[in-house]
């Protein structure tokens, strides 16, 4: 799937599309290595938002006037664009949400509330972001379901040998991340989905770290749900999507009640729309959806195979160069890795390091990365993370290595 030939891209020209990359921090050119937290936005997305507010803004699905028609059309076109981007069979399988976290909570409430009972098992992994852990803890508390976890090996990959013993008849859902936000591990999604389906469980893929970085086709992956955020893939904050296989979405009751999601309402009861509108109560984030579609257009113009190749090359280059530093421990797999590298240094605590790096214009992330159980698994309180996107360069990584050398000298 990742093997589609990547076309040649002028990456330095791509940087010009991002106004914020001309910013300075503490008198130094900004080096933004925190794209796993949120990506920067190209001019095209900023323009799309402005165009919407200047020419199309109105509420969707209700008004019979010109602007409402424009807004409705643009909003639903965006849904179609998202559907194509992830290979969904239909736009009806795409629910707009605030982001990955809300997408997962939607499944935990609407699907979990109906189908999860005492004694059922929800399978996760030890490398899940809190957003794919806490909603299931809350569901387990409400229902008496049990959580189980696929262990992570020392090399940062899932211990698939343990998986078969976890695939029991009580298993109702296997929810796992596509790419670990701390380790960079890329999980074998299709294989995991197939194994879970073999025991009759559904699957949910947390694609927060993958959706903007590599080609995704939900039908090829075979997942039942896929959750992702717009803001990590050049889009605005506050918009994301949940893909749900049509049959699964149709089986689910609503979660939020309100306008937009109903067919008819009496004082006593309501009749609800079908998916996806059943799950979109209230005025949606219309501008956000349009911004997300613009982000998809932008990404597709460069091409995900090229982006994936570029990003993983940066991550490998960074992981390799980091080993030059003494007392350096790089986490995560030595093989294929996503667009980030997490590390621990004997000489410098992650928070001291990120404060220090910031003084040189370098934006790193230090801490537990919403991965507290995983940090415990590796016996660290936190790591420093450098995460990359297609607007980053090897020269910036060279500069990071210089700054890290400087930090070691400063703190040792």
């Amino acid at each position, binding site marked *: 799937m990742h093997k589609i030939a990547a076309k040649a891209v002028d990456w330095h020209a791509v940087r010009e599309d991002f106004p914020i990359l001309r910013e300075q921090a*503490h008198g130094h050119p900004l080096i933004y290595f925190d794209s796993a937290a949120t990506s920067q936005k190209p001019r095209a997305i900023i323009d799309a938002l402005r165009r919407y507010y200047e020419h199309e803004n109105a509420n969707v699905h209700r008004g019979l006037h010109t602007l409402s028609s424009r807004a409705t059309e643009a909003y639903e076109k965006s849904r179609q664009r998202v559907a194509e981007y992830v290979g969904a069979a239909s736009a009806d399988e795409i629910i707009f949400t605030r982001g990955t976290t809300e997408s997962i909570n939607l499944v935990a409430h609407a699907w979990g509330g109906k189908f999860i009972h005492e004694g059922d098992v929800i399978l996760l992994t030890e490398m899940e972001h809190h957003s794919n852990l806490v909603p299931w803890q809350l569901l387990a508390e409400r229902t008496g379901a049990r959580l189980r976890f696929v262990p992570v090996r020392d090399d940062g990959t899932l211990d698939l040998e343990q998986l078969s013993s976890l695939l029991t008849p009580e298993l109702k859902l296997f929810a796992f991340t596509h790419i670990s936000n701390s380790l960079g591990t890329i999980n074998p999604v299709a294989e995991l989905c197939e194994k879970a389906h073999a025991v009759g469980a559904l699957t949910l893929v947390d694609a927060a770290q993958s959706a903007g970085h590599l080609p995704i086709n939900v039908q090829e992956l075979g997942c039942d749900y896929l959750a992702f955020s717009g803001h990590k893939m050049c889009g605005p904050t506050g918009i994301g999507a949940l893909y749900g296989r049509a049959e699964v979405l149709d089986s689910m009751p609503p979660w939020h009640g309100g306008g937009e999601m109903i067919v008819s309402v009496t004082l006593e009861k309501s009749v609800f729309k079908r998916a996806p509108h059943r799950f979109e109560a209230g005025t949606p984030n219309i501008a956000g959806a349009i911004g997300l579609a613009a982000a998809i257009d932008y990404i597709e113009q460069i091409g995900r195979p090229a982006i994936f190749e570029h990003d993983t090359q940066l991550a490998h280059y960074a992981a390799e160069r980091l080993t030059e530093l003494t007392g350096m421990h790089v986490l995560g797999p030595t093989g294929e890795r996503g667009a980030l590298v997490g590390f621990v240094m004997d000489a410098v605590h992650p*928070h001291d390091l990120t*404060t220090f790096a910031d003084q*040189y214009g370098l934006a790193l992330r230090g801490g*537990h990365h919403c991965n507290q159980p995983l940090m415990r698994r590796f016996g*660290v*309180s936190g790591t420093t993370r450098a995460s990359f996107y297609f607007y980053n360069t090897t020269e910036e990584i060279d500069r990071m290595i210089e700054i890290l050398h400087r930090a070691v000298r400063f703190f040792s």
Partner: protein
Amino acid sequence: MTTEIEELYQEVILDHSRRPRNFGELADAAVRVHGDNPACGDEIHLGVRFDAEGGLEDIKFTGHGCAISQASASLMTMKLKGKSRVEVMEMLRAFHDLVTDEISEAPKTLGDLRVMKGVRKFPQRVKCAMLAWRAVEQALEQGAGEANVSTEPE
């Protein structure tokens, strides 16, 4: 060029972070407080013994964390040993002002602790500097036994 960073990490702070003073278990502690900063995983385990008047006769700590939290704990234990309850509370308030308040003149009574002044330019690091102080505040409140304190109240 990097005056702010040098002001934050003064040589005294780096020295205390590398070789923290009063670091270890206090065998006959009257109260032990486990402080943590869940935002970053830093931990401090503080042991305190009181004198007949309730002042701090001895104080020691263990734990792990960033240079700021380690140095702050080390400097604090040096400063508070032998201080009365009232003096400790006064110093706690003065220290909090020192690391948060842009305009306050650092009171002379803080002595060495004034090297922590640079923290005020780094609001995200105030909790690092305050962790040990939150623990000692809890120790005074608790008086005996074991207690927990967190920089993120539940």
